[in-house]
């Protein structure tokens, strides 16, 4: 096992041994037997499985040509390394690989158009719960995930929930973009805040101190930002004990005293000095931080990394802190990306082989090293990625991974949870209640919108 993990990906070598195959087959058989029992008990993944697991690693076809579509990375060097690895794969196996990149907020429109026209790139990077939205267009990659699991250990729970649709893997876990607070140590010290707040109550108190000292505020979006808004307001909701929907994925639970408590915290924090921006999109807090307009904000590690690597204005006085905990615990949310092989691809095996090559431990660690901690690996083997110890200030970004949940939690990701997320219902509820102070109407509107989604005809 150990030697397999350390050697680069080689499809010829990756076929399972008979013992490993029997072991995995046994587990699959046991799992298959357990599904009806779980379903009878009200659990399980909902059936519809039939995952294909042959144990054979995909073999690239020499002369094949494939296209991969993904976002433009916030750390440009990471994209350079990603493309380099794709080119390396192409050279090694005689495959032409084209990497197409568009901004993350445009990725969904392009993906939707490809899915509807049944044509496009062979591999598409799926954000959050897209494999559930487009499951019919994604091929079964359970076999490949099985191989990766055997090499790299368990899949991170959020990637697993997003990739697995009705018991079948429709995407290969690719990465986690951890979200933590980046803050200015010099400004916080001036206001008398000596350590990063551990609870939301402490956070609100620290924000108030910043305001009292007439210093740059703690600031965050509560608008329609696909990353920073969701990663802020869902954890606030969860850490106060509230959820959008029950674990059954049907019963809307947003109208609760816990939700009101979460909103009350937000309203008080804003009254105290925490600044929310409904107009901010994902890049806006980055710009504000680099322009010395704010003292703390929740984001991926890109603010800190770009300060350290590129701008050098506030790198020495910047640090990162974990998302604070609420009365019901510590919850975080991170951006999740996975790779799906599309059903229209004429080169499915080559496409799968490319992803396997990119997920090879050696290759992946090179990638995370260059990304500087912006990305975290989605398998257990990456928990101890040296990138987290290289710079002690990056620890917060490592620590937020384990506590991560997904929009719609505790319900299993579904089309409905994905639609609720895409409509920013939770963020809108907070934004409206903060803007006009009318908690009741904000909660009721969120409830009616969620009920609309979960009761839609179909």
């Amino acid at each position, binding site marked *: 096992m150990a030697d397999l993990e350390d050697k680069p990906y080689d499809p010829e070598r990756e076929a399972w041994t008979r013992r490993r195959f029997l072991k995995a087959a046994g587990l699959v058989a046991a799992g298959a037997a357990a599904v009806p029992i779980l379903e009878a008990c009200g659990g399980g993944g909902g059936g519809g499985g039939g995952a294909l697991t042959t144990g054979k690693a995909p073999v690239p076809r020499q002369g094949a040509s494939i296209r991969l579509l993904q976002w433009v990375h916030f750390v440009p060097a990471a994209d350079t390394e990603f493309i380099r690895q794709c080119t390396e794969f192409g050279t090694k196996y005689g495959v032409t690989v084209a990497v197409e990149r568009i901004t993350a907020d445009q990725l969904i*429109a392009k993906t939707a158009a490809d899915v509807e026209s049944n044509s496009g790139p062979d591999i598409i990077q799926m954000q959050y719960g897209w494999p559930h939205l487009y499951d019919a267009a994604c091929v079964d990659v359970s076999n490949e995930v099985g191989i990766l699991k055997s090499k790299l250990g368990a899949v991170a729970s959020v990637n697993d929930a997003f990739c697995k649709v009705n018991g079948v893997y429709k995407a290969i876990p690719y990465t986690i973009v951890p979200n933590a607070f980046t803050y200015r140590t010099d400004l916080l010290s001036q206001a008398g805040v000596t350590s990063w707040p551990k609870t939301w109550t402490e956070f609100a108190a620290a924000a108030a101190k910043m305001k009292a000292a007439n210093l740059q505020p703690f600031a965050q979006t509560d608008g329609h930002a696909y990353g920073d808004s969701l990663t802020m307001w869902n954890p606030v909701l969860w850490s106060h004990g509230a959820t959008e929907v029950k674990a059954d994925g049907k019963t809307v639970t947003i109208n609760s005293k816990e939700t009101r408590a979460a909103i009350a915290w937000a309203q008080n924090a804003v009254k105290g000095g925490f600044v929310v921006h409904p*107009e901010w999109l994902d890049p806006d807090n980055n710009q504000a931080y680099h*322009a010395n307009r704010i003292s703390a904000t929740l984001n991926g590690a890109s603010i800190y990394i770009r300060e350290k690597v590129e701008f050098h204005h506030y790198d020495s006085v910047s640090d990162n802190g974990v998302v604070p905990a609420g009365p019901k615990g510590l919850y975080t949310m991170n951006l999740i990306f996975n790779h799906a092989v599309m059903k229209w691809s004429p080169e499915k095996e080559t496409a799968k082989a490319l992803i396997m090559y990119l997920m090879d431990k050696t290759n992946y660690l090179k990638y995370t090293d260059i990304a500087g901690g912006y990305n975290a690996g989605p398998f257990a083997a990456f928990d101890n990625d040296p990138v987290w110890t290289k710079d002690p200030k990056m620890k917060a970004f490592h620590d937020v991974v384990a506590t991560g949940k997904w929009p719609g939690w505790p319900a299993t990701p579904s089309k409905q949870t994905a639609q609720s997320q895409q409509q920013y219902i939770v963020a809108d509820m907070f934004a409206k209640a903060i803007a006009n102070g009318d908690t009741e109407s904000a909660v009721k509107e969120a409830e009616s919108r969620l009920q609309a989604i979960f009761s*839609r005809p179909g």
Partner: protein
Amino acid sequence: MSTATRRVSGAGVSRPLHLRLIEREAPMGYILLLPTLLVLGTFLAWPFLFGLWLSVTSAELSDPGHFIGFGNYNFEFKIDHPFWTSFWNTFLYTGVTTVFKFTLGLSMALLLNQIFPLQRFVRAALLLPWIIPTVLSTLAWKWMFDPTFSVVNWVAVHLHLVAAPGPNWFGGTSTAMAALMIVNTWRGMPFYGIAFLAGLQTIPLDLYEAARVDGANRWQQFLHITLPLLRPVLLVVLLLSTILTFADFQVPFVLTNGAPYNSTHVLATWAYQWGVPGGAIGLGASVSLVLFPVLSIIIAGVLVLLRRPE
């Protein structure tokens, strides 16, 4: 000779079908229409009919779904709360911007119709907002309204028009809507201006000279000569602009995409929200088709006005 030949062929020898069709006026007319009908059918009728079909199905991306009757419309009108916000926003957005574009466009045309130095250059320059791709110009506006680095606010603050830091354009519901209207007016005004200018230049100058001789002042000339003679152009431009503004997607999508908290969604962006990120294309189609009867009534009204004699 020719008469004889015709008699012979008419009596027994049949002429090829294509020759007979070409020689007759009506079939020839249909044949000539065929390419146009084909293009219209492929690019207009088929998408429209397909959209109609989608709107009565449970279709989702990569899933054709099944017939559900008026289920999607029922859902929109009775359950989907932001639909009504988008519906009213669409009317407000179209109504306000049309008034401004009409007034400013007409003023622009009247000014451009005068003789002044660099007249042709100014006419061409004023067309720029209409020529630049909408997404590009809207992105430029987005930067100008940027919450952190707004050049609009910088200018307004330095001219002491507003207190620093100036309005948070996309942070409030009314300011965000105002920003949308400003950009749409800026972009659409040249279309009105140039179309009206073309109309103004067809009005014979003799009429104005005669009016002046009769003692009519400028306002009376405008009211009794310019406006009546410009009426067909005004109505056509109004019709086209209303349709385009009702269906506007680019400006609201790029500038606010519904934020803050869905207060600036119009029907086009709400349809997109359901159809593309939400994956429910049947529902998205039903949202976009809600405008169809509204626009049909507007078009019918304008066409009646156009046909009515002065």
